């Protein structure tokens, strides 16, 4: 902490000051110069794109069964990654399976960011009783281990993708609400919000220009870390039979049904897990890179 003493008035310092990038400019600059994050970002992009374009990339019909081609090793008859317990092409199923697994990661976090983040910002801005009401309700949901809450809700409602998405959204709302509430309460008490109010500006202008921009960063960083948890939990639900219904391809469900294959062709049973692992590692690494890039001391 050094306070430089400047002669008054400071009009023309001889040296050119470093060009200001602004907050997001600095974050972008740091991300572009972080090879690890870039690598995993590219990997993640590849995974997302291949899931998105699965119908065009898949060499076989992912639902086509064959009794004679069950549990074949990679390379057999053009099946690059072999076949599953019903003789379906593994590669095609993995490509298609990514769609639902990725959805399980992204959709609940998006919903929770909007709902939980919104509630948290509201609680932080309102303070007092509104805050107490919202946060005490969140505390109740917080009192469940996340896996247990997801299993409880989707278990009671019965399986299915929609119910699983709903359950996961409910799991993520409390933590995001807490993060948003903490960030908002911190920012709300800073003098620049009071200074903005003191100009006589309308409340929505103060919120939009001075509060939201300072709250969004921490919420987004936290939410990005939740995506990989969503993928792990979502495929966990599918693994328990609470997600997708067969014959729909999904990494978690494939992991479950291929368990019986471990004595015949162990590699096959490991494949969907590798896919889940790679996806969640890249999301975690990108989130971590984002976190340190956004950690600008202000």
């Amino acid at each position, binding site marked *: 902490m050094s306070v430089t003493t400047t002669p008054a008035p400071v009009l023309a310092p001889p040296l050119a000051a470093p060009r200001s990038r602004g907050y997001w400019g600095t974050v972008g600059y740091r991300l572009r110069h972080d090879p690890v994050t870039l690598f995993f970002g590219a990997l993640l992009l590849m995974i997302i794109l291949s899931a998105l374009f699965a119908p065009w990339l898949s060499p076989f019909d992912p639902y086509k069964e064959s009794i004679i081609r069950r549990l074949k090793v990679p390379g057999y008859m053009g099946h690059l990654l072999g076949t599953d317990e019903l003789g379906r092409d593994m590669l095609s199923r993995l490509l298609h399976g990514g769609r639902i697994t990725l959805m399980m990661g992204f959709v609940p976090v998006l919903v929770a960011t909007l709902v939980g983040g919104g509630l948290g910002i509201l609680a932080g801005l309102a303070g007092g009783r509104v805050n107490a009401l919202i946060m005490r309700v969140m505390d109740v949901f917080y*009192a*469940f*281990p996340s896996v247990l809450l997801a299993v409880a809700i989707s*278990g009671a*409602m019965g399986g299915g993708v929609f119910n699983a998405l709903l359950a996961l959204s409910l799991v993520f709302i409390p933590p995001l609400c807490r993060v948003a509430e903490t960030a908002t309460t911190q920012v709300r008490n800073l003098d620049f919000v009071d200074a903005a109010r003191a100009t006589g500006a309308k409340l929505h202008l103060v919120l939009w220009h001075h509060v939201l921009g300072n709250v969004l960063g921490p919420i987004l960083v936290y939410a990005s870390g939740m995506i990989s948890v969503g993928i792990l939990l979502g495929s966990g639900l599918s693994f*328990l039979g609470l997600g997708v219904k067969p014959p729909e391809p999904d990494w978690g469900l494939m992991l479950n049904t291929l368990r019986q294959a471990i004595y015949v062709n162990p590699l096959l049973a490991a494949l969907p*897990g590798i896919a889940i*692992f790679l996806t969640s*590692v890249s999301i975690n690494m990108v989130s971590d890179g984002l976190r340190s890039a956004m950690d600008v001391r202000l």
Partner: protein
Amino acid sequence: MLLHLQRRLLAVLPIALGVSMICFLLVYLAPGDPLQTLLPPDADAETVAKLKQLYGLDRPLPLQYLAWLWQVMGGDLGQSIATGRPVLSEIRRSLGNTVLLAAVAVLIAFPLAMLLGTIAGYRSGGWMDRGVTGTAILGVSLPNYWLGIVLVILFSVELGWLPASGMGPDGSGTFNPLHWEQLRHIILPVVTLSMIPVGIIARTARASISEVMAQDFVTTLRANGLPERRVLRHAVKNALPSVLAVMGLQFGALMGGSILVETVFAWPGTGFLLSKAILTRDIPVLQGTILVLAMIFVATNLAVDLFQSSLDPRIKRG
């Protein structure tokens, strides 16, 4: 301290009530008539009438909840649709096995995590630190149920060293650590389950130790010629309270979170019970098990909180 205890207990009470409310509502989340959800499809008219009367299903929801809560407080969690046995006795039979699994997993995780965390925190920013931190990220990205399958492939299928599932002879009975056959059965589930606590405890230890190492008095101690071993011992001592607290929290979380690992290894605990209840749509068992596990989680969190405040003089004022 007494005041703090009182306050914490008062704060936990509404949470526990809220948790019970959510568990109560699970029955209503299920599609269809709650009566059908709670009864086996072949229940006779007498049983139906009895249950209707017991839960007061025609009364308004808040009254139903109070009636249900009264039953639960008396130890009646309803009857399993699949087996017809009381839910409480089903939970009793499996709870011990889950406690065993979670406790052993946390106890195994502790020394390993302490070692990793100390190595990383001692020279934070160094290559060892980066290695440990990177491994921790890999650890939390790993679906532990998949790790379980891979371990089974390796040690049961390929090498044939360890059994793939179950608890071994007289499984659901008492666990005897000297019984080699039982010990063999617990190794793989425990190793799988301890993955997450290792990562989380190591991270806590690392943060705490690197914080101490950066403090001025450590520099002073070193400048005065205190041997590194003593400096390290001081740092570890300082890290212990928060590490122990995280261990407690992890134990509670594993109790509720072991469902996937128990399913992979067919370990006869509460998680396996839940997993079976989901497959058979045995809602009373699902509801009761989740209630018990969530309450255990709340109780361990409270215990950890009290433990921590008993160590920290700053919290004593309440």
